[in-house]
C-alpha cells in the first residue's frame, strides 16, 4: 500500500518555507489583479485573511524573482506574468523586493511610554532599521550573494549630493553595506531587548528614535552598487499586515508612504475592515493619483477600480482558483496515476449523476407537480417532455417556478393566450435555474454542492478557504489512490464532503473568531430572514436571499458610540459585524447603489450556504434598518449546534 501526501494540507508553513513549492503552486493570473501604476506611488492592498495578499507580495520578493529568472523553463508563465507587471525585463530582475511584516513588535511600542512622541519616534526607528536590513538582504539575494556574510559587497551611492540624504545615511549607519548592517542590526537588537525586558526600562532616557522614514528617503535618492557595479533595479518595499499596527502608527506610516516625492516603490497590505475608519484614505492622498487601492475581493468580483475599468471578473477568478488547485495537486496525482491528470478533472461528472439513478422517479414526481391541465403552459411542458435525465428534471423544476410566477401575475386574466418556449426563456434566468437546481436537490435528497463550477464559489473569493476545501476533496482521492483505484470523486461524495466542511466552518466560528457567539447570532438572523423569502415558491429574489444590507447612513450611525448607546444591541451588532468581516464570515461591499440609495451589502461566506441549504449565487439580499439588525442581537435564535453558553468578554 502506497501512502500519499495531501498537497493542500501543508499550505502554510511548508509552502512558506519552500520557495519552489510556493512558486509552483502560485497562479500567475493573480498578478493581473494589480493595477498598472504600482511602481511610482503607494499601493494599498486589502483583503480578508487568506485572500492572497501575502502570496502576491511574496512573488515580488528578491528570492522569488531570482528563482523565477534562474529557472525560467519551470516558471515560464509566472515569468511572463512578472514581466507584464514590469518586475522583470528579459532575463534580469527590474525590481528589488524587500518584505517587512508589520505584526512584529511595533504595536507593543505604543505601550512602553505614556509619551506618544517617544513611541512614534521609536516606531520609525525600528521600521527604518528593518527596512535597511531587508533591503541589504534582498540586494544580496538578487545579486546571488550570501546574507549577511557578503554585506561588505554593497554600497548605497547618493545620485546627487544632498544634505538630507547624508543625514538619512548617518542615521542608518552610513552608505557602506557592512556599516549599514552593523548599525541597523545593533539598533534592532537593542530596541527589541529593551522592548522585551522583564525589568522596568526608562525609555524616556533613550534617544534613538526619529520622526520620519529615513530609509525610504535614502533609497529614493541613491543607487545600489554590488562589487562596484551598478545594480539597475527599483527598490520595492512591501509592508504586510498593517492592520496589526496601532491606528496612530498606521496613519503616520501611510502619510509618509503616500509622499509622491519618494522614488521607491512601496506597497502596504492590511486586512479589510468595512466597519472602521480604515476607508478614510482621503487624508493620505487621492486614489488614482497619490495611491492605488487594491481590494482583492472587490477586484475578484469584477468591480471597477479608480480608473473605472474592471481588471478581473468572477469567472476569471474562479478559473484562477481551479488553476491553483491543479498546480498544487499536479505532482502527487501524476506520481500516483502515472500520467498527467488535473485535480479538477477528477471532480467532473456527467450531469445525470446528480439524479443518483433515480431519474424516472424524480421526473415523474416533477411532471405530476407541474402538470395542471392549463393550456397556457402546454408548449412549455411539451418542450420539457423532449428532455431527459437531469436536464428534464431541472427544466421541470424551473417551469414550476415560472408557472407560479405567471399565475401570480395573471390571475385576473383568465383568457390569456398560451405561452411560447421563447416566453419561458425570456422569463427565466441563470439565477432562477440556480434556485430551481437547489430546490430540486433539496426536495429529492440529491447532491447539489459539487462540480468544478460550484466548488470555486464555496471558496468565497478566498484562496486559502478554497484550498482547504480542496484538501478535504483530495483526502477522498487519497483514500482511493492508496487502494490503487482511480481517484474520481462522485457528485454525491463531493456534496457530502462540502456539507461536512460547512458544518466544521460553522462550528469553528466560536473558537476562531473573537465574539464568535455574536457572529453566530448574526449569521443565524440573516439565515432566518433569508429562509422567510427563500421558502416562497415563486423565488422572489433569485437565486435566493443570502445576505442583508445596511444603508450607508445607518453604517455611519453604527460607528457612532453615542448612537450605539441609544440602540439596544447596537454594540453587539458592531462587534459581531466587524469581527465577521475581519474573519471573512461575511463579506461587506460598501457604497453599492440601489434605488438611489447607497448601501453596505453583507453576504454570508459561501461555505456557510450548504449548512443552511442556501444557494451560492450572490444575487439576493434584503435591506434592513440598523434598529432591526440591532434587535437581532438581543433576541438570540436557536440554531444548529448553537452553543447557548454565554461569553465572558475579557
Amino acid at each position: 500500500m502506497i501512502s500519499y501526501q495531501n498537497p493542500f494540507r501543508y499550505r502554510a508553513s511548508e509552502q512558506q518555507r519552500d520557495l519552489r513549492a510556493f512558486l509552483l503552486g502560485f497562479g500567475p493570473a493573480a498578478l493581473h489583479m494589480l493595477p498598472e501604476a504600482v511602481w511610482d506611488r503607494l499601493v494599498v492592498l486589502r483583503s480578508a485573511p487568506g485572500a492572497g495578499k501575502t502570496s502576491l507580495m511574496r512573488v515580488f520578493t528578491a528570492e522569488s524573482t531570482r528563482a523565477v529568472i534562474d529557472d525560467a523553463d519551470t516558471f515560464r508563465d509566472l515569468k511572463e506574468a512578472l514581466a507584464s507587471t514590469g518586475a522583470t525585463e528579459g532575463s534580469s530582475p527590474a525590481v528589488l523586493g524587500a518584505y517587512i511584516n508589520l505584526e512584529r513588535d511595533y504595536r507593543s511600542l505604543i505601550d512602553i511610554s505614556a509619551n506618544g512622541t517617544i513611541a512614534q519616534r521609536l516606531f520609525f526607528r525600528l521600521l527604518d532599521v528593518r527596512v535597511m536590513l531587508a533591503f541589504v538582504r534582498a540586494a544580496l539575494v538578487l545579486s546571488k550573494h550570501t546574507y549577511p556574510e557578503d554585506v561588505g559587497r554593497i554600497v548605497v551611492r547618493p545620485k546627487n549630493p544632498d544634505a538630507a540624504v547624508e543625514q538619512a545615511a548617518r542615521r542608518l549607519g552610513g552608505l557602506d553595506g557592512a556599516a549599514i548592517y552593523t548599525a541597523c542590526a545593533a539598533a534592532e537588537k537593542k530596541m527589541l531587548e529593551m522592548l522585551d525586558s522583564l525589568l522596568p526600562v526608562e525609555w524616556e532616557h533613550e534617544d534613538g528614535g526619529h520622526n520620519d522614514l529615513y530609509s525610504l528617503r535614502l533609497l529614493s535618492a541613491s543607487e545600489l552598487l554590488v562589487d562596484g557595479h551598478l545594480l539597475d533595479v527599483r527598490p520595492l518595499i512591501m509592508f504586510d499586515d498593517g492592520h496589526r499596527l496601532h491606528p496612530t502608527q498606521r496613519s503616520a506610516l501611510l502619510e509618509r508612504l503616500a509622499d509622491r516625492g519618494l522614488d521607491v516603490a512601496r506597497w502596504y497590505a492590511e486586512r479589510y475592515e468595512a466597519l472602521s475608519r480604515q476607508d478614510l484614505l482621503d487624508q493620505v492622498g487621492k486614489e488614482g493619483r497619490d495611491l492605488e487601492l487594491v481590494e482583492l475581493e472587490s477586484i475578484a468580483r469584477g468591480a471597477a477600480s479608480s480608473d473605472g475599468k474592471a481588471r478581473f471578473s468572477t469567472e476569471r477568478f474562479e478559473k484562477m482558483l481551479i488553476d491553483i488547485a491543479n498546480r498544487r495537486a499536479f505532482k502527487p496525482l501524476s506520481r500516483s496515476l502515472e500520467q498527467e491528470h488535473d485535480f479538477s478533472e477528477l471532480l467532473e461528472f456527467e450531469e445525470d449523476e446528480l439524479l443518483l439513478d433515480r431519474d424516472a422517479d424524480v421526473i415523474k414526481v416533477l411532471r405530476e407537480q407541474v402538470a395542471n391541465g392549463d393550456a397556457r403552459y402546454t408548449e412549455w411542458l411539451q418542450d420539457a417532455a423532449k428532455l431527459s435525465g437531469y436536464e428534464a428534471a431541472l427544466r421541470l423544476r424551473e417551469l414550476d417556478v415560472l408557472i407560479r410566477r405567471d399565475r401570480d401575475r395573471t390571475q385576473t386574466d383568465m383568457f390569456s393566450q398560451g405561452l411560447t418556449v421563447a416566453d419561458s426563456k425570456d422569463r427565466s434566468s441563470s439565477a432562477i435555474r440556480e434556485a430551481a437546481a437547489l430546490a430540486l436537490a433539496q426536495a429529492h435528497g440529491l447532491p447539489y454542492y459539487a462540480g468544478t463550477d460550484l466548488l470555486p464559489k464555496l471558496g468565497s473569493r478566498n484562496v486559502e478557504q478554497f484550498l482547504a476545501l480542496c484538501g478535504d476533496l483530495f483526502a477522498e482521492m487519497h483514500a482511493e489512490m492508496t487502494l490503487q483505484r482511480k481517484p474520481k470523486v462522485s457528485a454525491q461524495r463531493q456534496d457530502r464532503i462540502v456539507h461536512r466542511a460547512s458544518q466544521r466552518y460553522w462550528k469553528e466560528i466560536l473558537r476562531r473568531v473573537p465574539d464568535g457567539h455574536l457572529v453566530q447570532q448574526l449569521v443565524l438572523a440573516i439565515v432566518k430572514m433569508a429562509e422567510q423569502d427563500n421558502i416562497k415558491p415563486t423565488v422572489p429574489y433569485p437565486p435566493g436571499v443570502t445576505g442583508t444590507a445596511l444603508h450607508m447612513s445607518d453604517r455611519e450611525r453604527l460607528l457612532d458610540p453615542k448612537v450605539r448607546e441609544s440602540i439596544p444591541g447596537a454594540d453587539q451588532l458592531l462587534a459581531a459585524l466587524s469581527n465577521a468581516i475581519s474573519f471573512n464570515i461575511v463579506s461587506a461591499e460598501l457604497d453599492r447603489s440601489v434605488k438611489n440609495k447607497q448601501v453596505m451589502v453583507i453576504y454570508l461566506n459561501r461555505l456557510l450556504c450548504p449548512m443552511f441549504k442556501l444557494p451560492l449565487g450572490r444575487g439576493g439580499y434584503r435591506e434592513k434598518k440598523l434598529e432591526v439588525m440591532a434587535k437581532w442581537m438581543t433576541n438570540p435564535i436557536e440554531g444548529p449546534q448553537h452553543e447557548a453558553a454565554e461569553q465572558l468578554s475579557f
Partner: protein
Amino acid sequence: MKPQSSSPSELRWNDYVLAHDGDGSIEQLWQAAGAKRRAVYVMAEGFDPRTITGLRRFLASGTFENVLIIAIALPPTKHELALKLAGENIAERTALIAKHNAQLVTIPYPQVSEPRAAGQRIAHSVIQAGHFKDAHHIVLDVSAMPTSIHFALAGGILAHCEKAAKSQEIQIVVCDNPAMDAAITNLGTAAADAINGFTNGLDLEAGSKQVRIWAPVLGPSEAVALRAIRDRLEAREICPVLPFPAADPRRGDDLALGYRQLLFEEMRVNPGDIIYADERNPFDLYRTLSRLNAKFTQTLKPLGEVKVILSAHSSKLLSLGVLLAAYEHHLPVVSAPPTGWSLSPDFDREQLSKHDQLVCLWIDGSPYR
C-alpha cells in the same frame, strides 16, 4: 545572554523542590521558606474560583506574621456571573485579610494596546513600586492568571530577585483542576505572537536565517491556536509535547488522535519527533525542553542561528515547565490566546472546587544555594 546548558547537571532546576496536595508537604514548603518572615503573596483578582484556593491555604498555614497580598486585577467585564464569582472571591479575600491581619495592594489592569504586553507592564509596575523590596518570601499564585500575565510576572520576579541578590525565596503556587478547566471553554483566538518579556529575539530582521524549531505542549481543543502559531512561525521542525505519564494513561494518545490531521498531514510531524513529559511535574517538562534546546542548538548550528520556540496549550501546571525552560534558555514563547471564555451551563462552583489540587514549585532561594 547566558550560555546554553547542555547537560542535565548544568541545568538550573535539574534538582528541584516540588510539592503536591495531599500530604501536607505544601505547608511544609511554606514553613521552610519563610516562617515568621515578611511574605508577599501575588495573586489574580478574577472570577475563576481557583483564585482564592491558594491564599486560603497559605494564610491558614499560620506560618507568616506579616503578609502583603498583591492582587492583580484582570480585564474588566460586564458579565453578571463573572462579576458575581469575582465578588465572592473578593469577599472571601477581604475576610481572610481581616482574620490574618494581612495587607492588600491592588494593581489595576493596565491600559494596553497590545494585550500580550499587559503582563510585562504589570510586572514592571509591581517591581517599580518596590513591593518585593523587603520581602523574604515571595509566592506567585498563577492559578487564575492568563499565560501572558503569569509568564511575565514570574520572569520579572525571578529577574528582579537575581538582580537584587537579597537571597529571597520564590515559590509558585498553582491550583490544578482539570474538571474546572473543562467547565471553562475558550472562545475566539487572537493573532499568534510572542508573549512580551519572552520574545527573545524571535523576529530579528538581522537574524532572518534563523532555523526555527517549535515545541508546542499539547492540550485539548487548541487546533485553532496551533494553526495560528504554525502559520506565524514557519518552523522547520515541529516537536509536539504530549503528557505522559498522566493521570489518564490514554491522554497522550487521545490528544495525538484528536490532532492527527493537524499534526501528521498539515504539519507533517515525524512521529519520532513527539516528546513526552510527566503531566504532574513541570520540572520534568522543563528538563525535556532544555534537552531539546541543547540538542537542536548543537546539531543544527551549521545551518544558522537555531531558535527553539515554545508554546503552552496544556494545563496551567504544565505551562510552568515551559516558563522555566524559556526563562533559563532565553527561548521565545508564542501564544494565540483566547479572546473570551464561556462557562458551561451547569457550572457549579462548589462541586468543581472539590477537585482542586494545589501544587507548589520552589524556584529560587535556599534549596538552590
